[in-house]
């Protein structure tokens, strides 16, 4: 049972554009929503995370938007750069349970 659904599977964005990746979850008990970034040949690494008590969190060019009522959250990458080309995973977890990952989005930023 897939508890975190991520879309799109792949995304191509022009340099300087906005990249948007969406995730939806089912379990209302989730209280931690991280995004991981993975470059080829490397392990995933935490990029940014949000708790459900806020609707948005911004770190530099990366923003998480969170909609608790819709059970959706998204990652926005502003002014996308070729160095942002990577695979992005959304995830969710409860305080006392394992992290559930989405299937990933391969992002390619055109130079």
């Amino acid at each position, binding site marked *: 049972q897939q508890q975190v659904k*991520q879309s799109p599977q792949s995304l191509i964005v022009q340099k300087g554009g906005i990249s948007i990746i969406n995730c939806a979850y089912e379990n209302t008990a989730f209280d931690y929503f991280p995004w991981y970034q993975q470059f080829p*040949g490397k*392990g*995933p690494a935490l990029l940014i995370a949000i708790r459900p008590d806020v609707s948005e969190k911004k770190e530099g060019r990366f923003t998480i938007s969170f909609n608790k009522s819709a059970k959706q959250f998204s990652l926005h990458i502003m002014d996308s750069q070729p160095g942002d080309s990577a695979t992005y995973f959304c995830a969710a977890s409860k305080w006392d349970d394992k*992290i559930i990952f989405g299937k990933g989005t391969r992002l390619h930023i055109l130079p």
Partner: protein
Amino acid sequence: DAGITQSPRHKVTETGTPVTLRCHQTENHRYMYWYRQDPGHGLRLIHYSYGVKDTDKGEVSDGYSVSRSKTEDFLLTLESATSSQTSVYFCAISERVGAEAFFGQGTRLTVV
């Protein structure tokens, strides 16, 4: 990078042979995980450990076993490797379940 070392980094093995992958951490984190990553499936949890000799199954545990005899080492064993187990395997650690996970560099396993 968090102190996580996976070995080997690459391995080719024949169907039916046993294979053991090793994860070693220097962070003294309680939780350790083994994931496999396959195109179209993302990261899927195989097994995890919440302490020495304490392990539990993940969503794709069939055909795999694990052991943790020391805090710093978590071993993943394929008792009899099959072609469907060709994948990239990642070890991860965390201070507590549900918290930020730190991943190793991965092991690319090919079963021929």
